[in-house]
């Protein structure tokens, strides 16, 4: 079983106080603690669990600066076999589409039976990279995956839908599965384990190694441009609508109309 897991090194923002940086298009990260994206942690655990059961190899791929090696070493300590970090000045400013292109640049030449990603990243929250990557590779995919059963030539997965519903789906393999949190319980990795994982292979590749052109990645290769990032102002007024469904709906329409929004 050859499994590739795509991970992202992200700032932890749940407890932190967030401030906008001087460009107005990002957040200040100096005082933030970075770690593996939570969803990706579950994806790595799932890959290692599958490997422990069926044998094989787990390869971790990320796009990021040297600091992301911390996340890669953690993945290696969890039981992954090798890691690849894709890095280049030209990659700066890549959106989900350009990031998927970069990942595709290396994954297209790697053997795999399964690709796992997190469903989304805790920082930008686009939830697109996995799906676009599957598109580039021309393989089927499933998102919000809460359970994976591997069969001969296909995999049966449970997807988490709104309102607590689960959908069971069969996906032909090789496939890309974007994993939802809670699919397993990610293991703890000890500091000793991370130190030992230094012996495992960690390869660094750049733009030229992937056969990509500068204009295909970064801002110029992206479909999305960030215009501005801001912290939503705290509003002073809130109106809670009461009444039956019809009454509330017409009140909403009325309000939106009155403000020229529809």
């Amino acid at each position, binding site marked *: 079983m050859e499994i590739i897991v795509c991970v992202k090194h992200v700032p*932890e923002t749940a407890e932190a*106080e967030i401030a906008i940086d001087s460009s107005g298009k990002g957040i200040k990260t100096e*005082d933030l603690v970075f770690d593996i994206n939570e969803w990706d942690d579950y994806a790595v655990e799932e890959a290692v669990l599958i490997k422990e059961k069926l044998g094989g190899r787990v390869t971790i791929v990320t796009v990021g600066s040297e600091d992301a090696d911390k996340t890669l070493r953690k993945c290696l300590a969890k039981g992954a076999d090798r890691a690849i970090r894709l890095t280049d000045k030209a990659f700066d400013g890549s959106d989900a589409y350009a990031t998927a292109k970069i990942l595709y640049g290396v994954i297209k030449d790697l053997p795999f039976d399964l690709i796992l990603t997190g469903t989304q990243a805790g920082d930008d929250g686009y939830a697109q990279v996995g799906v676009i990557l599957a598109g580039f590779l021309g393989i089927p995919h499933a998102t919000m995956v809460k359970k994976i059963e591997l069969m001969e030539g296909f995999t049966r997965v449970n997807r988490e839908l709104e309102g607590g519903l689960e959908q069971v789906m069969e996906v032909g393999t090789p496939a890309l599965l974007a994993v939802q949190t809670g699919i397993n319980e990610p*293991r*703890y*990795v*000890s*500091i000793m384990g991370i130190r030992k994982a230094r012996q495992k292979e960690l390869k660094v590749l750049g733009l030229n190694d992937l056969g990509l052109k500068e204009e295909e990645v970064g801002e110029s290769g992206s479909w999305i441009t960030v215009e501005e990032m801001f912290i939503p102002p705290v509003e002073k007024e809130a109106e809670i609508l009461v009444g039956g469904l019809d009454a509330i709906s017409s009140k909403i329409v009325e309000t939106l109309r009155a403000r020229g929004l529809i």
Partner: protein
Amino acid sequence: MAMEELAAIKKLDFNMCMQCGKCTGSCPVSPKSKLNPRRFMLETAYLISPLTMHPPLNIQEKGELWDCTTCSTCSYRCPREVKPMDVLIGLRSLLVEAGNVPSTLGDALEGVYKYGNPWGLSRSKRQEWTQDLKVKYASEEEKIDLLYFVGCAASYDSRAQVVARAIVKNLNALSIDFSILGNKETCCGNEIISLGEKGLFEEIAGNNLALFDRYGVQKIVTTSPHCFHAFKSRYGRELAVKHYTQYFADLIDEEKIRFSGKIGKVVTYQDPCFLGKHNDIYDEPRKIIESIPGLRFEELGRSGKRSVCCEGGGGRMWYDIPGERLAEDRVREALDVGAEIIVVACPFCLLTFDDAIKTSGNEERIQVKDIMELVAETL
């Protein structure tokens, strides 16, 4: 299997264990858990000497290892000095290396690694408890003669913060010059090593020693017996550290403390494991309590060397097990001796008793307070 850990356990002489069972008999947790130190001593001997006929111990299935509070009663009572608690900590490290850690404990370890505290709270909020208090923060300009090491619980937990504030008020009232590390302070690592995470502990200890050196720290006084124990016995370097009970008992001996108020209540005292059983500090806290005017001091039925753990140590602040908490039993003992206040000298005791008083429905009858709170009220 992590050979280094096994080697560490191997150093303990298992031939010394005569299977008398005193360890299990005195373990406060074993009546409600599968934790059986005596059996672990025997089975660990099998683990390290495969020549026996017994089946090998499958340590990865021994989840009850997390139930130990590292109260040290077993080590203290063992007639052969086998130190069962150290063996259990060594066995925990085998689970840690395998990543086989209950998720809440994994979160606590990660929290210390990333944010310097087991609750995983932001470093920038560590010194918020000081609010309007007069404190001096460590700075490159001045060497620190006396460092007040606050600790994680007293920095972040709103109930325990009251103790940190009381200590600062008391030191200021006595015109004692001291500094704190503020947001630069990091977990002492006592619970980390107790959980068997040796690599992380080494890293924390190294960083803390470097921080003490950077600010030229001469003497340290701690809120928590756990920090005190780590600095005194686990850092591999001699540090001039005192728990606050020792520090204030000395001030009483030197007649530097004059109380102006009084506490007209019956009080009793819970010996924290990391002061009492681990470090033989029984008299100093009692000296402070008994010097406070107006109060009547009653010992608990089981006190001093026979004192019973509150169940807050060894990582148990972040890991619960089924059954009544030991602190609830202690609350009943305190009521039996007619106490209106259970006095403690450890933030973990403070928090476990605070809970136990509520869960046992005794909020109207008894309170828990730290010694430093009583001193602040009467100075």
